[in-house]
């Protein structure tokens, strides 16, 4: 296929015969050492421009600049230090020019590393202090210079790569036998923060530091910005998230968190694939946002001239696939909710949703236990771990308790009989007469709940009173009580089961108890980590539930609009209250842990002001989904797990921003 005339000229840089061969050899064993011949002409005159205060420390980060990061701290120190970041940058730019002047490209094209530093540390663990590797093998390492100190004709660089750290032992005489003038380069042109490649033998210094004895040193990438002085000591959390790459350079545990994240995701994937689940991709851009109750992002497609919303869950599309005959599917991917940013919420987050035909919520409970245990073992090596000082045990079967039971335990109030009675009544008489009695039962229950909450010693719990008053149904009331009294106290893994039908629009009615569904949420350290149900497969019932959800949502929206209009009269006073109040109540519920629905859990909860914030968006019926159900969906168990929260849990991270590489910032 090669037409010679086309491949002449530049093609010499791409030999055809070799690549296959080279590719087959693992990266680490490619022994092509790059010798770095440097011309002896040295630009010594530039080396003194930068006056960093190198601490003679063997490890850690050397101080490059005393310049503080914020303008506030710089006021005093700037006068003391000769090198502001701008000055450092100019000095380093000059070094870039100098290197080029010497014929060395300060932004190299490639480097053949023979070993990761960690591999060398492991291979030579037994090497005695002061001893040299007897084999005399030449190794090549590459990474970032984290510290540097020069003592006469000797220089020590601390080099860090993806997997570890090693010392570069640069002795002028030894280096310059193969690289004349090399020592001056190391001394004058290499800064902390640069990426360098180094080849040489291995020895352990008298002080016990394993080192590569430099026979060639090459600047691979010249850094222009000095690395920050201190990192973790400074509480500039914002900067850590905004410049994650610096966070990673400075703190090995940050990189470990993201390795753990990757491991958790691949463990989930492997576990599911072993159980014959098929991974699929469903659209992010949807015409109707469904499968949860949350404010969606909107966007516009120019050439189709139509609006799209970004998915708030993958549920409805995945269930269509179960209808289509994919009996076990999952999607691990990004979900988007147009909500406030907090330590537990990022507008985009990752969930895994799993659907298994012929399974029910009971089966999904054991699947959940298995998945979480597998991830814990992969990351922590054990099913026992500590989260923010609290010991957790995932070993034994997780506790299972119904929502009503937990509320009763917490406050003595048992709403289950009333919920069951109301549901039975609703079933008997359609609308009409039962409505009045239902209202009476609700009012009675609310009065009891108010009494319980008002008497509660915990102020936070008392705050839920407005939500109790505005609860539109017994089911919502139970949920309000659960959130106020129980949720935060569920530290050890607990399956909370049998949620009221009113707050679970996509879950199947319980097979024996009217008014509640076959659903569970998994709570650990007071946070929801999974949400699951026996899926509702009855299209008529599904339509009715959607309808009800729509009515409640629109009702709340209209009420909020009316309240807003009223508040507008009272002017700014109200607007401030609304933003504060809204934040407080909304953060607890339309949660991201679940890939599944929250149903109308958040709907209509909270005061008028929060409702305004929560509900001011349009929701609509996904008719096509109901049509799909009309074609028959097998009995199916569905499960959503919030991946970010799981990563937080297993990496002992307090904020979601610690586990998302680039969280959204103001």
């Amino acid at each position: 296929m090669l037409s010679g005339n086309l491949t002449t000229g530049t093609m010499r840089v791409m030999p055809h015969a070799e690549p296959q061969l080279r590719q087959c050899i693992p990266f680490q064993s490619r022994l092509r050492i790059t010798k770095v011949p440097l011309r002896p002409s040295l630009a010594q005159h530039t080396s003194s421009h930068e006056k960093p205060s190198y601490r003679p420390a063997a490890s850690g980060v050397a101080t490059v600049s005393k310049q503080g990061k914020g303008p506030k701290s710089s006021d005093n120190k700037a006068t003391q230090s000769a090198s502001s970041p701008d000055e450092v940058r100019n000095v380093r730019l000059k070094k870039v020019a100098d290197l080029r002047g010497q014929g060395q490209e300060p932004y190299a094209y490639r480097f053949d590393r023979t070993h990761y530093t960690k591999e060398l540390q492991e291979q030579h663990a037994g090497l005695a202090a002061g001893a040299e590797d007897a084999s005399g093998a030449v190794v090549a390492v590459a990474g970032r210079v984290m510290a540097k100190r020069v003592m006469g004709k000797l220089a020590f660089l601390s080099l860090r790569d993806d997997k570890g750290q090693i010392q570069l032992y640069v002795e002028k005489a030894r280096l310059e036998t193969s690289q004349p003038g090399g020592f001056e380069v190391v001394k004058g042109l290499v800064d902390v923060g640069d990426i360098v490649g180094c080849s040489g033998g291995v020895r352990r210094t008298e002080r016990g530091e394993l080192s590569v004895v430099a026979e060639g040193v090459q600047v691979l990438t010249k850094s222009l910005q000095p690395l920050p002085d201190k990192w973790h000591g400074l509480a500039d959390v914002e900067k850590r998230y905004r410049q994650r790459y610096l966070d990673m350079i400075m703190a090995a545990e940050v990189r470990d968190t993201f390795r753990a994240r990757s491991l958790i995701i691949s463990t989930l994937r492997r576990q599911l694939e072993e159980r014959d689940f098929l991974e699929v991709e469903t659209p992010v851009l949807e015409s109707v946002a469904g499968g949860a109750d949350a404010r969606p992002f909107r966007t516009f497609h120019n050439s189709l001239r139509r609006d799209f919303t970004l998915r708030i869950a993958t549920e409805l599309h995945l269930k269509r696939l179960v209808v289509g005959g994919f009996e076990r599917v999952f999607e691990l991917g990004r979900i988007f909710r147009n909500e406030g940013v907090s330590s537990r919420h990022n507008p985009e987050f990752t969930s895994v949703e799993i659907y298994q035909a012929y399974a029910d919520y009971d089966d999904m409970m054991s699947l959940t236990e298995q998945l979480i245990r597998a991830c814990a073992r992969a990351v922590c090596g054990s099913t026992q771990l500590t989260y923010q000082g609290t010991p957790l045990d995932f070993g034994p079967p997780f506790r299972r308790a119904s929502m009503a039971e937990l509320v009763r335990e917490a406050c003595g109030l048992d709403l289950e009989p009333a919920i069951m009675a109301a549901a039975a009544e609703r079933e008997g008489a359609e609308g009409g007469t039962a409505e009045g009695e239902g209202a009476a039962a609700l009012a009675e229950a609310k009065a009891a709940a108010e009494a319980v909450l008002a008497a509660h010693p915990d102020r936070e719990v008392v705050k839920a009173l407005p939500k109790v008053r505005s609860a539109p149904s017994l089911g919502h009331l139970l949920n309000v009580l659960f959130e106020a009294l129980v949720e935060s106290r569920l530290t050890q893994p607990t399956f909370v089961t049998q949620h009221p039908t009113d707050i679970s629009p996509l879950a199947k009615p319980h097979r024996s108890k009217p008014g509640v569904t076959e659903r569970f949420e998994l709570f650990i350290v007071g946070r929801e980590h999974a949400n699951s149900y026996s899926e509702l497969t009855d299209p008529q019932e599904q339509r009715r539930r959607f309808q009800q959800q729509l009515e409640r949502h629109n009702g709340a929206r209209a009420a909020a609009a009316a309240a807003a209009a009223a508040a507008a009269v009272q002017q700014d006073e109200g607007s401030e209250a609304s933003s504060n109040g809204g934040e407080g109540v909304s953060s607890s519920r339309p949660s991201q842990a679940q890939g599944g629905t929250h149903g109308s859990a958040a709907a209509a909860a909270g005061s008028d002001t929060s409702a305004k914030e929560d509900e001011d968006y349009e929701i609509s019926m996904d008719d096509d989904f109901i049509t799909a159900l009309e074609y028959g969906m097998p009995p199916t168990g569905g499960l959503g797990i919030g991946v970010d929260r799981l990563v937080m849990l297993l990496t002992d991270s307090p904020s979601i921003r610690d586990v998302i590489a680039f969280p959204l910032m103001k």
Partner: protein
Amino acid sequence: LDRLCRYSLRVYTRLASTEGPLSSLAAAASSQYAPARPAPFFENRWLALISKMTTTEYVLPDQWSEDLKDEKGEPMSKSEFKKRQKAKRVAAEKAEKEAAKAAAAAAAPPKAPKEDGPALEDDSSEITDPTAYFENRVRYINAKKGKGVNPYPHKFNVTMSLPDYVAKYGSLEAGQQETETTVAVAGRVSSKRASGAKLLFYDMKADGVKIQIMADARNSDLSLEAFTAVHNECKRGDIVGVEGFPGKSKKGELSIFPRKFVVLSPCLHMPPSLHFGLKDQETRYRQRYLDLMVNNEVRSIFFTRSRIIQFVRRFLDTRGFLEVETPMMNMIPGGAAARPFITHHNDLDMQLYMRIAPELFLKMLVIGGLERVYEIGRQFRNEGIDLTHNPEFTTCEFYQAYADYKDLMDMTETMISQMVLEIKGSYKIQYHPEGPEKPAIEIDFTPPWRRISMVSGLEECLGTKLPTDLESEETRQLLADLCVKHNVNCPAPQTAARLLDKLVGEFLEEQCVNPTFICDHPQLMSPLAKWHRELPGMTERFELFINKREVCNAYTELNDPIKQRDLFQDQAKAKSAGDDEAMFIDENFCTALEYGLPPTGGWGMGIDRMTMLLTDTCNIKEVLLFPAMKPEETGPKKDADK
């Protein structure tokens, strides 16, 4: 409307042959016993729709709406609507009873002259009108609910998947039965045939395989009457659970002989016919679940897609790459040249762009010390939809510190050729670039692959030398003249980069049927690639073309922050000159580069296009489960209650 008209043309002939398709159910019933197969569901549905629009007969819609008019064009009140609806229901019920009677009369005499009980029903007694079919089924489940029976059971314990069943019992002899074994399987009924008063044959499908259910009243614990009742409730399309013993029929058909038979989820609509399949593209994409139900080859496309992604993941994992996730919403859409989607974050009152590429974030992670990273995920581009473009699509990008584009070329050859070998069993595949009806071509993935240096390759084709300074106005003019000379159309703005791109498309990409690398793109086309170490003005970049389409794009990454900023500024100039696909300047990224990005090779592949090649499809919609579609003319009803 446009689509409806197209349909009406097709369906009209059919309309002419029947007398008033929606007239009476009795007519429908009488035609049930005609030897012809019932028309495929969708044609029927359209037929019903068309008849609503084209016949003078007034048809009551399913739902009342504010703007509903009666046959005289007067607005219809809700109560009037309800009255009419009831009347229609009564009429339908009556008609159905008559039809059933007629059916019984037609079926009874030859089959079971002595029996008085209801006969077994099968596909031949199906109602052919889709609306009536649906209404009938809804009545049936409502009746069940009325009796306190849940038509949607909570759980059926499946002990064996259907593929496992086939694997385990496929080798039984014809007529052999394992009556001592009990197995429970489940799936969707694809056809139902009665044979006498005591025997029924079903075909059941699940997970892409099919077995037969041989329901014999003699194997059932139920009385004949109860047996008949249970089975008469089941229709084609229903999800059923069967517990029984395995065996083969006398004809050698692998079967299950049920002791227990449960409908787990009734199918309320007439399912698409297995016999005719589902061919209509619009329906296939819009209602993918129907497509998957009927067309086995569609199922397999998505298995292949999953295998491709698995292969790439495994390939990178074994080479020490770390899978990461970077934001899909950004303040600045970087990493590629494309028009982004814009959205708005309410709480922060902030405009955000959907990502067009993860490139810049992944490079920041390499700066952070994760030396080998990759991300497989969705990208979004606000572009037109065509055979190879969907607004959201899936890519894999990986970045490897200390590697360059030549390393990546070798890696690409290895990865893709091994992938093809593993999935297709050979380096050579058959592909139909213009659809299954048109001739096939062979694509040979045997490595090594051809490599063409872009500018010298172009010079050969054009027979002229191109100036070394590609940035000058003279060069731009020369390229514009070449385009005119060779009849290559380049829409404004005619920048040098765009002109070159068109010429390459015309002359080089056309040669790339077998996998071919086009390399060494000019810097002005590649603002994120590193300048070529030997060819001035060029970059160390390659694109892999297969079947004349770009599948991969990779380069030695530009890591000189000063040059990067300059190139971004050129892009900004191009943008202000009207090239709205030029890149945005990302100042954060430039700052990150100043902390030092090691020498790095970066690589991207379009998963959708790769999947198209390996599934022999030429429309990207075929490899997406739910492709983006134009809004439906008969769009979803809004707020049906008000």
